């Protein structure tokens, strides 16, 4: 191995990192014991659904916007948007044309971006700005000054999106992008605003015998192996290795007051939590 550094300046872990292999399981385990700081521990990440809220237009978006405005001086919020029906259309078309996952991700990002722009036009008069991923270093400023910012929910993976195990739909979409924002910032809450009261044993839009689940661990939920879910499977996978986000909450944006209740810490909708403490298995 090359001698490239003056080791005296480094911690013991640092010495192992510069001289060892990053794929060495022992080095990876050693990084478990390092501290975790929460970068923005008071921020709440809120995902506004694409198909479930934005595509419904004024009747659904208006009350959600009013509720966000009412909370501007009570809670700090990062508002991410979902994609929705235009993404489904462009995915169908692109799949038919034989285009790969990475290209579908670029296309889907544009739809989430459109929704973010529309949401921003509605909130602009309250001083709320839109930030691209490249502008995230300015987040603290906007949040301190104005209480909220808007971003598009897709992670910035672009052509680098990984294939799913099955099929050709990008597996990491806006649920995942917003979750990872909450995780990296050590956010206070991750709230998904959709058009259902939370998680059901089946899709309540299609199956009237479906029953509501108030609280469930991510491990139990995965064990149920449901055909459909309220959230992208990638979020559940990432929750198992997350170090900061311990639970995510789903509220019905069509019911006035649910978002506020969730922001105030009430157990409305459905909460999916990570059982155990720091167990990355």
């Amino acid at each position, binding site marked *: 191995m090359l001698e490239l550094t003056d080791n005296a300046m480094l911690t013991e872990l640092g010495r192992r990192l510069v001289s060892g292999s990053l794929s060495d399981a022992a080095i990876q385990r050693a990084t478990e014991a390092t501290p975790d*700081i929460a970068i923005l521990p008071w921020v709440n990440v809120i995902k506004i659904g694409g198909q479930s809220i934005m595509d419904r237009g004024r009747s659904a978006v208006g009350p959600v916007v009013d509720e966000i405005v009412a909370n501007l001086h009570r809670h700090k919020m990062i508002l991410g948007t979902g994609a929705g029906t235009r993404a489904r259309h462009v995915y169908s078309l692109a799949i038919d044309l034989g285009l790969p996952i990475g290209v579908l991700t670029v296309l889907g990002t544009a739809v989430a971006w459109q929704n973010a722009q529309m949401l921003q036009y509605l909130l602009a008069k309250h001083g709320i700005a839109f930030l691209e991923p490249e502008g995230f270093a300015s987040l603290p400023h906007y949040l301190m000054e104005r209480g909220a910012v808007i971003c598009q929910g897709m992670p910035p993976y672009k052509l680098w999106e990984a294939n799913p195990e099955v099929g050709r739909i990008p597996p990491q979409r806006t649920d995942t992008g917003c979750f990872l924002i909450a995780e990296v910032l050590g956010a206070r809450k991750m709230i998904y605003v959709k058009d259902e009261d939370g998680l059901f044993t089946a899709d309540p839009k299609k199956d009237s015998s479906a029953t509501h689940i108030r609280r469930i661990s991510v491990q139990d939920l995965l064990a149920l192996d449901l055909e459909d879910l309220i959230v992208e499977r990638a979020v559940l996978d990432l929750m198992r290795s997350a170090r900061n986000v311990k639970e995510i909450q789903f509220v019905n944006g069509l019911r006035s007051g649910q978002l506020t209740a969730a922001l105030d810490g009430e157990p409305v909708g459905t909460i999916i939590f990570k059982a155990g403490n720091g167990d990355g*298995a």
Partner: protein
Amino acid sequence: MSANRIGAQHLVSRLMRESLIDKTVIAGTETAVRAILPSLNVIQIGGLSIMDRGQSAVQPLLDEIVANQQDHVQVVGVGAGVRARHVLSIGLDLGLPTGALASLAAKSSAQNAYMVSCLLAHSGFVYLEAPFIVQLLPAVLAAARGAVFNGIPPYDLWEHPPAVGKIPPHGGDAGSYLVGEVFGARTVILVKDVDGLYTADPKTHPDARFIPEIRTAELVGLRLPTLPIEPVVLELLSRAKLARSVRIVNGLVRGNLTRALAGDPVGTVIHA
């Protein structure tokens, strides 16, 4: 007013009213993908293994890339190296999360990629940041049959927390592989300072056997304590649709890259 009017305003499409999380809907999308740039060769230059050695290792390899420019379309990804290890070590000590560590490490590989692009500038290679790979790569390749990019994918703050510890799992090998996969590249070649894979570390196990070719599942089954490539590449390979193999070659041996580009057996090939 019909019930539909109150609901979401849909665009007609096959996925229109479906949950994109529904397993049956997802399985129904399993159809053929086309290769966008099938003549592309993705060459990943290792950070610690090649770049950090300086001119003696880097220059002969770049000479070989230039010598192959007439025959092969090459995009060169460059990995991070010891500077990324250093900033990881400081970042971990400060308590930063994986996403913050990933964005820091990606700057180190960007430096390496920029240096490589300067050394290849005389042959028309340019350094393309991720947004320009999305928009400009075909134009650049048509002009010069070559480009350089940051091997670390642009996951930044959105990097996955790994199952164990905090080291960002997607490095230069993963990013270069994903470029190969999305464009349907002809080859993905990972240039390192080892001949390829062995059944054990040849430095400590004289009876270690060289592995010229192996499948991903078999390699995972060998449970090797360390690999010369990022383990996440094996996961990505197992879900490959177009880039169904990667080849590891020793870039310190002249001619290896040329042989790999020609499709000759050199180094280790890992199949999906």
